[in-house]
């Protein structure tokens, strides 16, 4: 069985995003970039499924040439080969989903495991879009995945609790935080990853038009909250709560 894992290069989650003074976006110059955390979980899940009949894991990234680093991380974790679709322009989820569809058509994976959301644009769309374009089942926000030879049963995190769905293969899964804890790549595996195959393509190779549909007119900082007062003890806090009408 083959699994495709799309991974996105994003601002590291530990870095505080700074809005550029000219209002065109968030400053990504000279800041640490990493694999989207949900995609690490996706790679990890694919690796764990190797005991359950998965034989090949293909990592895919769409973005600037530096996304190679992200793919090498996936290879070092345990993916077998990688495809980079180079685009210097930002590709929106719809464009990403169309490219992924073209790759799925060529690679014929049994499963595609994506992150539920990229933590830069917080779109939470790509997996669902890909499933729609392919006309296959989707299990978003996965917290548990059980794979058999012709189906996958997924427990999903939903408002109020959890829900279980059974999908026939091929299927699309998106990961939630509690699916697994991703491994760190070991040094020998990082070395080995350097010689694993990494194909470079362009959107034109797949005949996909990735012209953006949205124009970002401006990006601003949210209204700032300022620190308020510190109270000395519980009595003072109780008095404040009473003054607000929260406590009687």
């Amino acid at each position, binding site marked *: 069985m083959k699994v495709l894992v799309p991974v996105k290069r994003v601002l590291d989650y530990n870095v505080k*995003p700074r809005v550029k003074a000219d209002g065109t976006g968030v400053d990504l110059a000279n800041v640490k970039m990493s694999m989207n955390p949900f995609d690490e979980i996706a790679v990890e899940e694919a690796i764990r499924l190797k005991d359950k009949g998965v034989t090949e894991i293909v990592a895919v990234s769409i973005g600037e040439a530096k996304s190679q680093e992200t793919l090498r991380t996936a290879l070092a974790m345990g993916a077998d080969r990688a495809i980079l679709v180079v685009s210097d322009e930002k590709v929106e989820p719809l464009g990403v989903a169309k490219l992924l569809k073209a790759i799925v058509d060529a690679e014929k994976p049994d499963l595609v495991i994506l992150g539920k959301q990229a933590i830069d644009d917080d*779109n*939470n769309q790509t997996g669902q879009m890909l499933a729609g374009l392919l006309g296959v*089942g989707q299990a978003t926000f996965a917290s548990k995945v059980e794979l058999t030879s012709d189906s996958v049963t997924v427990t999903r995190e939903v408002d*109020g609790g959890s829900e279980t769905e059974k999908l026939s293969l091929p299927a699309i899964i998106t990961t*939630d935080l509690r699916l697994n804890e991703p491994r760190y790549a070991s040094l020998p595996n990082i070395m080995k990853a350097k010689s694993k195959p990494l194909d470079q393509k362009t959107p034109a190779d797949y005949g996909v038009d990735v012209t953006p549909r949205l124009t970002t007119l401006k990006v601003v900082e*949210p209204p700032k909250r300022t620190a308020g007062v510190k109270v000395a003890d519980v009595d003072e806090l109780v008095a404040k709560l009473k003054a*607000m009408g*929260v406590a009687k």
Partner: protein
Amino acid sequence: MKTLVWVEHDGKTVKDATLAVVTAATKLGEVDLLVAGSGVDAVAAEAAKIAGVSTVLTADNAALEHPLAETVAPLIVKLMSDHDAFLAPATSNGKNIAPRVAALLDVMQISDILSVESEDTFTRPIYAGNAIATVQTKDAKKVITVRGTAFEKAAAEGGSAKIVSTDGAGLEQSVSTYVGSEIAKLERPELTSAKVIVSGGRALASSENFHAVIEPLADKLGAAVGASRAAVDAGYVPNDYQVGQTGKIVAPEVYMAIGISGAIQHLAGMKDSKTIIAINKDEDAPIFQVADIGLVGDLFKIVPELTSKL
């Protein structure tokens, strides 16, 4: 412009999240609602009373009992031949369904909008709410999810929309089937609609402590209970208690963060709360930078004392 709003419901009543979406839709034009499900008469009747709604479209089919995106999306796509914009709440169901609709319509979805600036321009948070983007769409049809805390709720009473049934025939659960769910029975207010929220973090150190310390305070205040990711990951509380960038977005009158450090991913989910109260033993914890009222000290001493004095 004619808009179609997907109504979130549990088979019995309309979920609150829908009302904020109606408000957002009203800013775009005429509002139709879609009530899809199995045995939806009561829900449709309730939906028809929401102020500002023209028509309630119903799709009644056993295959729609659970809102699987695979089944619901094609139905919405069909109805979109007659509508210019589709709106859904940014709830787990809304987020699951809307992008599939967008892909089938070949449009780029605008996720989690905070405001409607004009017919084609919206604001939305990016980078865990550390930046707000104003985006304009070139797509003729719009697919939008709406952040519930960013819009007033439409009045649940006062409207008198007509109810029209649409053809739900031919729908089936095919590529995916619903197996079951474990939805906890809530004894407290729902997180996303509560006026007061008491949230606990990693500092609670165990599930027993969480129940013994956080819940009595919440009950005294009639509050919902939330948690940080760390508390959820450690198993102190169920996953749907998580507040944050990748959990629930809340904006209550009062949010109490107890033993929560204030990571940006947590702040993303609660920093629009009216009043933030933080209790933390570390006076330099980042949560104090956004808290209106802070109390430095050991929560295991402070919280029981607070509960007893309320």
